[in-house]
């Protein structure tokens, strides 16, 4: 079984009986182990709702979500926390680091929550920060480092406990193009060398072109799906733009 994530007819409705917003209207797809998948779509297409449902922050109206074969829509409150702590890693658009903790301590949070033996934590932090190139800033506080460094710290936090699935919500949204490119390369490395499975939500075609597979959402449904396969990144990027143009979405970066 190499499906890490499997969605079956996931629906999420908001509002009252008279006014229903169908944020997700029957979405099904799966993500296999070691895959790097992007979800794209215009504002209001249901990207964030979908991500919230997968991360168990929100509950589905109907349908099932399986992570490592386990149906997370059936889990109870207590098990949900346990599930998030062990199976998921998060990378957010606005970094979500705690400003009172140093970078090192922020990274350690994932392990502390899982109750890892304190004596092992330092070694793990050293290992992961070497890979992500943030050894020099470990003792600093979040407000003393750049946005790109913060996001790499967030990646380290998401990765350190080897979760089954890493969820990234617009990870490059708050970064400049150089930092964004560096982060995406690191994520690609995480995916290829550390064998992390990543599901990334983005509206940015450039970010999406780093993935192997891109899902397009429109009005709460999957509109299209394209794979990189043997294409170069440039070709894949152009292909994504084509789909977006048809979608009527983001084409501002066509050059």
């Amino acid at each position, binding site marked *: 079984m190499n499906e890490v994530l499997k969605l079956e007819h996931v629906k999420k409705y908001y509002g009252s009986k008279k006014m229903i917003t169908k944020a997700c209207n029957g979405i099904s797809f799966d993500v296999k182990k070691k895959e790097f998948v992007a979800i794209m779509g215009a504002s209001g297409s249901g990207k964030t709702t979908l991500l919230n449902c997968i*991360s168990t*922050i929100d509950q589905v109206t109907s349908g099932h979500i399986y992570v490592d074969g386990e149906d997370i829509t059936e889990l109870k*409150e*207590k098990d949900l*926390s*346990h*599930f*998030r*702590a*062990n199976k*998921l890693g*998060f990378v957010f658009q606005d970094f*979500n680091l*705690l*400003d*009172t*903790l140093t970078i090192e*301590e922020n990274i*350690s*949070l*994932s*392990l*502390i*929550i*899982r109750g*890892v033996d*304190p*004596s092992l*934590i*330092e070694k793990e932090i050293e290992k992961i920060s070497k890979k992500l190139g943030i050894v020099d800033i470990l003792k600093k*506080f979040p*407000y*003393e480092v750049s946005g790109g460094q913060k996001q790499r710290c967030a990646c380290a936090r998401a990765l350190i406990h080897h979760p089954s699935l890493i969820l990234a919500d617009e990870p490059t949204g708050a970064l400049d193009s150089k930092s964004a490119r560096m982060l995406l390369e690191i994520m690609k490395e995480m995916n290829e060398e550390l064998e992390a499975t990543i599901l990334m939500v983005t509206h940015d075609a450039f970010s999406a072109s780093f993935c192997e597979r891109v899902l397009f959402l429109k009005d709460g449904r999957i509109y299209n799906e394209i794979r990189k396969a043997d294409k170069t990144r440039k070709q894949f990027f152009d292909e994504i733009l084509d789909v977006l143009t048809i979608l009527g979405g983001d084409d501002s970066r066509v050059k």
Partner: protein
Amino acid sequence: MLSKLAYRNSCRSIKDYLIYLITVILSFSLVFSFNFIIFSKDILELSSSMRQFKTAVYFVSMIVLFVVGWLIHYTTKFMFVKRSKEFGTYLLLGIEKGKVAKLFLLENIFLGLIALVISFFLGIIFSNVMTFIIMSIFEMPYQVSLTVSIPAVMLTLLYFIFIYLFVLCVSYIRVRRMKIYDLLYLNKQNEKQISKKRRRIYLFVSSVIVGILSFVLCDSALQGEMPGLDLLISIIGFIFSIYGVTISVGDMLLSLVLCHPKLKYRKDHLFIVREFSSKVRTMGMTLGTLSLLTALTFLSINLSLMMKDAFEHQTNSSMPYDIIIDTIYSEVDESMAGKIDERDLFRKYDQYIKDHYDLTGKVDYNLYTMTTTTLANDLDDMGVLGYYKMDTYISLSDYNKLLRMRGDKPITLKENEYYVHGNQDIHKGIKEIVQKYKTLDINGYTLKNKGYTTIDYASGWGVGIPYLIIVPDQVVEGMPILDRIVAYNTKEETTEQFSIDMGKEVGVITLEGEYNGETYNYEVTPFKVKGAFLAENRTAFTMIAFSLLYLAFIFTAVVGTILAIQTLSDGTRHQYHYSLLRKLGVEKQSLYKTIRKQLFIYFALPIFYPILINIITTYSLNHLFGPILSTPTFWIFTVFFSTGLFLLIYLIYFLATYFSFKKNTLER
């Protein structure tokens, strides 16, 4: 438009600053009620020294005014910083600065007026309750009154206007001086990294040392004759120490945890310690002031308790029975010996007392002396003796009657034993002489010592006699009488009026004295009435005890409030932290636990060191008050009581904060 906005903003503020508003209301209610009391005729007519009570309340009100003023000033400033972005936006939108300033002032005046109106009505209720308590201390009838004295209202209004004028002027100036940029980025200034960690550790160590030195100085000052400059220095030392320890303890704790990876990465230690030390860094001085207020609260309660105990002890000691008749007959005192028809006078007093009260007990006893000074000399050398410098004896049966009438257990003596009962303040002296004189030769008998006590000695047993030697009955036979005394207990409470009337109707005694070769006559009142004694002494006690408790309550409330609003207003930041922890997979229950721990440490900081100071200063104060207190260990009781009383009120603030915090951060 402006007032509508101001109104809506203050409604929103009420929700965020409810605890603050309640404290301001309670404080003003107390100010109101104390003013009602000092302008109340019933109270002023209780005793002539009630005028002093009025002065004392004015003085205490000044301190309260200062502290409440600080609370309001602090909170207003705090609200301003929290909402600076909003004000910046108003300016950005083109609203004039003056108008924005006016808006903020209007809101605060609105909040203040709400508090004032509510506290006016609460004040009437409080003042009735307090009048009732005072009246029952004086054992007077009491009727609920809802009349409002105009001067009291005017005075409170004056206080109110005074505080608000000051606070509003300061905030008006602050708003006028602010630039848009400052306003937009003001609340980002909160997180300043202070890198002088080493300095803070030095500060901690030196503060602790100063604290210890202050204690040593204070302890020796209070043991000495006249505490003066040394006491003042130790007080300054304590203040420095309180601020120093409070400011630096966060970093101390942090370094401790960070140095031990095992401690650091266990459970939620890291998160809590980091949040805590960042809090202490940004508001160290405020927390220092809160610690100081806490220490003052303890001091107020302790002093109040010691006064109360000293008063009760003094009453029990000076007036162990309802009426005592003495200094009428003496075979030793030359001024009295054989000059008065004592039988007739005793009979007259006895008759007069029986005419006015039902008796529940009466003891007629003699104090004897051989005019020898064996024990007295030794005690006098230690400088502890009073008027009569001679050994005084009482027979065992008389002594036991006195004990029984006071509700104490009688003692037993063998035929060849003696026992000493002395006053608390000559405790050390008596211990020494009892060890020195294992046997005594008295009136032809040789007696062995059976022991001694200094607990519950009644100075009313014999005027000017600080200790009694209790001997078997046959020993005093034939001994000269120093004083003949009759003690009565009555069924009804005695009054001041009775004492005056008995003096007038039965008369006092006139004695002849001699000074510089001239003879003159002087009057002696040969009786003491408990009711008169209480009337003279109660005022001072009531005055001090009430004022100190008043202060203690206000201080506690201010400490609780500032901690509460500080914590609650950090809501948005905490909400963000806690929601992140939730996303990372922390269970709700363990988050509650983390919140509890975090708040607990935060609330414990301003009281931990003051509790320590409470213990050591009360120990030192005991040197001063010890001799007039009921037991040598009374100070331990006051430490527990003051800490307990404070914690009780504090706990209410803690719980209120905890539940609102939980609601704000997790359930929103």
